[in-house]
């Protein structure tokens, strides 16, 4: 993510996490912005994790997505974050498959149990009976390179799961 100062306002430019793609700069302490993924805002608030909070509105109100310090970081720090994502027991991303994408009218996500689609307020869940059904949905919805990587991942799983 990047921070941009433009005409005396600081903007967050977030490339997204999961399906939470805001797809436009978000002004610090400005108006909330809306994308097919939801409504988001960036506020000044000091927490143990930073001095700004990025929030998404949910049924129960504004919900914290992450906090940040507005500091530049170097490649070494980015690589440290990558190591945490790969190896930390607290990481959400090293446990099971997750593929997610924003579409023209909503979002979809695929994990090892199901395909889930949310579109204009409607929701659809297709549970997988086996790896073949999972791979079929990945092939239908994701890029060829993602499908090929998923095949490799499933093949690595086969000795223990099939």
């Amino acid at each position: 993510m990047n921070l941009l100062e433009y005409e005396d306002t600081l903007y967050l430019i977030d490339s997204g996490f999961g399906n939470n793609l805001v797809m436009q700069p978000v002004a610090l302490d400005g108006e909330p912005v809306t994308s097919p993924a939801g409504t988001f805002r960036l506020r000044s608030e000091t927490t143990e994790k930073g001095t700004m909070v990025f929030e998404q509105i949910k049924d129960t109100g504004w919900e914290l997505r992450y906090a940040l310090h507005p500091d530049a970081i170097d490649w070494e720090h980015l690589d440290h974050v990558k190591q945490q994502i790969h190896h930390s027991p607290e990481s959400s991303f090293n446990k099971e498959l997750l593929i997610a994408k924003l579409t023209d009218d909503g979002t979809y996500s695929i994990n090892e149990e199901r395909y889930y689609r949310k579109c204009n307020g409607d929701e659809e869940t297709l549970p997988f009976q086996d790896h073949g059904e999972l791979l079929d949905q990945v092939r239908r919805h994701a890029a060829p390179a993602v499908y090929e990587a998923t095949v490799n991942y499933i093949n690595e799983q086969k000795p223990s799961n099939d």
Partner: protein
Amino acid sequence: MLQWISERVTLTGTPLEQISQVQKLFAEQFEFGNLDVLLANEEPITERYLVHTL
């Protein structure tokens, strides 16, 4: 990367609008996924790595 973007979208409007057009292009083109984690891609993050990943 700039050439890759210019081949797919003509940026117009204010700088903020142009940034939004690039963000939408990336959202259309790329899934979020964790296959590099599950496949143990341990290549260090560098500028070259990010461009290659895209």
